[in-house]
């Protein structure tokens, strides 16, 4: 809860758009330190005997160093292209665990671990351009003299009773005109109603 305030935080990122078009392994150097005799280094020794060659062949961009040190606990140091360096203790690791840990550090970007604020991130959030007050503005407003007569009316006006009556009178007038087209006197009387 509170510890999240003190840990570094940020968004997922990659160095130099790695993985888009080409991929460069960011791990530049691995230094394995182990003891030739002690039991805690046994897994590391097994790993060196059986798996190390294939690991080095799989990662041609990574230099692998071996540092036998008498009576020392085994560990390896992973160094990255961005200058980051991490030391991992492999005390009592089996050969299998060594493969797993080395694979993990070979696939990392070297950017220090952080708490992700969001699991997704984009450098370019908008394709069409961010909304602004002028995006959907009517360009006619640029040359309008304020206060404008047209904009002084409501957006939507419901027909008033007077207007509806006037319209009905108009309709009646037209229909009665059609009926009594020949008789002018009748139509005049109807218009007065």
């Amino acid at each position, binding site marked *: *809860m*509170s*510890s999240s*305030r*003190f840990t570094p935080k940020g968004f997922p990122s990659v160095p130099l758009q790695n993985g888009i078009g080409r991929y460069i392994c960011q791990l530049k150097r691995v230094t394995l330190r182990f003891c030739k005799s002690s039991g805690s280094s046994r897994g590391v020794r097994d790993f060196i005997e059986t798996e190390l060659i294939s690991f080095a062949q799989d990662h041609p961009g990574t230099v692998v160093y071996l540092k036998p040190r008498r009576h020392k606990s085994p560990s390896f140091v992973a160094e990255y292209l961005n200058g980051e360096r991490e030391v991992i203790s492999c005390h009592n690791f089996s050969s299998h665990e060594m493969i797993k840990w080395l694979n993990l550090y070979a696939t990392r970007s070297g950017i220090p671990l952080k708490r992700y604020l969001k699991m997704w991130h984009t450098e370019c*959030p*908008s*394709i*069409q*351009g*961010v*909304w602004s007050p002028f*995006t*959907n503005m009517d360009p006619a407003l640029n040359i309008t003299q304020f206060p404008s007569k047209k904009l002084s009316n409501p*957006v*939507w006006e419901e027909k008033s009773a007077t207007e509806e009556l006037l319209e009905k009178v108009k309709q009646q007038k037209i229909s009665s005109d059609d009926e009594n087209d020949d008789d002018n006197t009748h139509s005049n009387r109807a218009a007065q109603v």
Partner: protein
Amino acid sequence: MVFTTAMMLVRSRGPDEFWRKRKIFKIAAHFSGRRRNCYSIAIKAVHRALQFATIGRALRKSDMIVLWNTRIRAGCEEHGIELNTFKEGLSRCDIQLNKKVLADLAIWEPSTFKALSDLSKSVSIDYELPGSEKYNVPTNVVTRGLLKK
């Protein structure tokens, strides 16, 4: 912990005092004054803070819903359509975008949002939804009544 007798189980007060308190102090690390350093004060503050955190988890969701609705309503009214008609029109076209995505579209991709509102407007005119008599028929959407099911 291994308890040799039942009596020891009763008397045991959990893990070591240091670790028990450290758990609380870790949560209280960003508090101010003695609420951070004195255990008896810190524990009260932590209980209070955790209660607020529990309530806040529900509040955050409802706050976001209100915010998204406000943003979508603003986007809709810019194009002359009400929020409810907009949503109804979209659901009748089987466009299943949620509030978050619609609010994001209104901000970040305004042309897409305008297209959605135009579509929703013409669908609501086709269905003669209440309030659709106020809308001008959008010229860039041709439905010929085909969207009506």
